[in-house]
């Protein structure tokens, strides 16, 4: 059963997650605690939900292979092998391409959500979290890019799931990604094609979301690309920031049983 009272986080090495207040969460994280992903449900990503991403496609949406602008939400799975937590060290498969660090608001579902109306959508949301939705940069969005989006550790979540009463304006949150010493990348949840309630309504018209599932509001257009040796710090609104480090593949190669 999924339950959330305040700040739910799962320190690495502990058997169970903790549900603590903001101050206790901040104190724990200030000690440099690494965490597991605070969620265990299905994680769905939302593609092209930033108006700037759609604008960047421009007239291409009318040409092959797309032929028409997207109508329904475009979603993808972040399967269980992709889940990782705060302070994870993620393998960059090809350093020439790097890894795009998509900072997305994660909407954490609180109870079974089927055919949810826009006006009721917030009743179904337990809270929010940060999702570092990682991908190997790819220009075409015609085919589902499992090889680019579903690599081990490519969905870093947390550190905490923050109860919705702490997040008054999910549709107007500042997004920030600090990558190495570069200028911070900034964006906002306000530029979404579908806001939180509309996304939940449109998605649950054809697929049920269960308690503990996460759906992202979508990655901002122009997200920065990390390379081996980088550390990224993602923040959204006032939620505890999420840290991810990027490492080379050498130490992880080879067939495993």
């Amino acid at each position: 059963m999924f339950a959330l009272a305040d700040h739910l986080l799962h320190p690495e090495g502990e058997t169970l997650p903790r549900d603590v207040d903001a101050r206790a969460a901040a104190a724990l994280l200030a000690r440099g605690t690494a965490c597991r992903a605070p969620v265990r449900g299905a994680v769905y990503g939302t593609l092209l939900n930033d108006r700037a991403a759609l604008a960047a496609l421009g007239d291409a949406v009318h040409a092959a292979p797309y032929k028409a602008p997207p109508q329904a939400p475009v979603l993808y799975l972040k399967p269980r092998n992709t889940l990782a937590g705060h302070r994870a060290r993620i393998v960059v498969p090809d350093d020439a391409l790097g890894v795009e660090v998509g900072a997305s608001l994660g909407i954490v579902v609180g109870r079974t959500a089927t055919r949810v109306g826009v006006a009721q959508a917030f009743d179904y949301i337990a809270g929010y979290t940060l999702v570092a939705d990682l991908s190997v940069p790819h220009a075409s969005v015609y085919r589902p890019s499992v090889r680019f989006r579903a690599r081990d550790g490519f969905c870093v979540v947390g550190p905490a799931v923050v109860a919705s009463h702490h997040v008054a304006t999910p549709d107007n949150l500042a997004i920030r990604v600090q990558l190495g010493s570069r200028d911070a990348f900034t964006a906002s949840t306000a530029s979404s094609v579908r806001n939180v309630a509309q996304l939940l309504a449109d998605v649950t018209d054809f697929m049920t979301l269960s308690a503990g599932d996460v759906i992202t509001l979508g990655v901002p257009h122009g997200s920065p690309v990390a390379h081996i040796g980088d550390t990224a710090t993602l923040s959204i609104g006032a939620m505890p920031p999420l840290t991810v480090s990027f490492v080379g593949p050498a130490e992880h190669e080879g067939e495993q049983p």
Partner: protein
Amino acid sequence: MMRGRVAYAGAIHEAYPDANGVRLADGRVRREDEVVWLAPIEVGTIFALGLNYAEHAKELQFNKQEEPLVFLKGPGTVIGHRGVTRRPADVTFMHYECELAVVIGQTAKNVKRDNAMQHVAGYMIANDYAIRDYLENYYRPNLRVKNRDGGTVLGPWFVDAADIEDVTQLELRTFVNGTRQQHGNTRDLVTDIPALIEYLSSFMTLAPGDVILTGTPEGIVNVNAGDEVVCEIDGLGRLVNTIACDADFNRA
């Protein structure tokens, strides 16, 4: 060994084939229609293959792809044997897809083709519905087509890999209201099972319970509310599903 999972008399049971219906692990034997059939296993990640039979790809007017067309499905889309799947009133082309489902039994990372089959625990029948009216060309096939509630039917049985003599020679058949509409053989897979495991495990770790739906052969036709759709695969049984209408779901 063939085993299923059914709900009966307030609990979920492992169940086995029986001459008189289905035998529960506790010994009770019941008719097939006295129990509620769930998916035979609790699934992990669900992979699905598009265009993985050459004749079916031709049927949909696609050329051979450069790499396997893989997409993922969520847990909410899965239902069991004898379930119902909703056909929205506004669509013109909803079709079944009879597929061999491969269940992973051992963690697999960077597995080579020669060792791939030892990572397979067993097989199931899958009927992976699609609604072509909802196809859009963004991460196609998009989830509104392929990840609908009740759109992925699994069962009735999970069959141990050791019980299938030659998985590369299995006949697949789909009957709609008793008429055979789809017929194929796993020998015609474009990317075969070892190659799929090698491909997927080259960039991600597969875990026990992960399921690969290996694609469907040619012979898809539209189905309508009330139709009975039966998928068969040699040695795996017979998977029944019925198409329901919007009114059954209290939709206008």
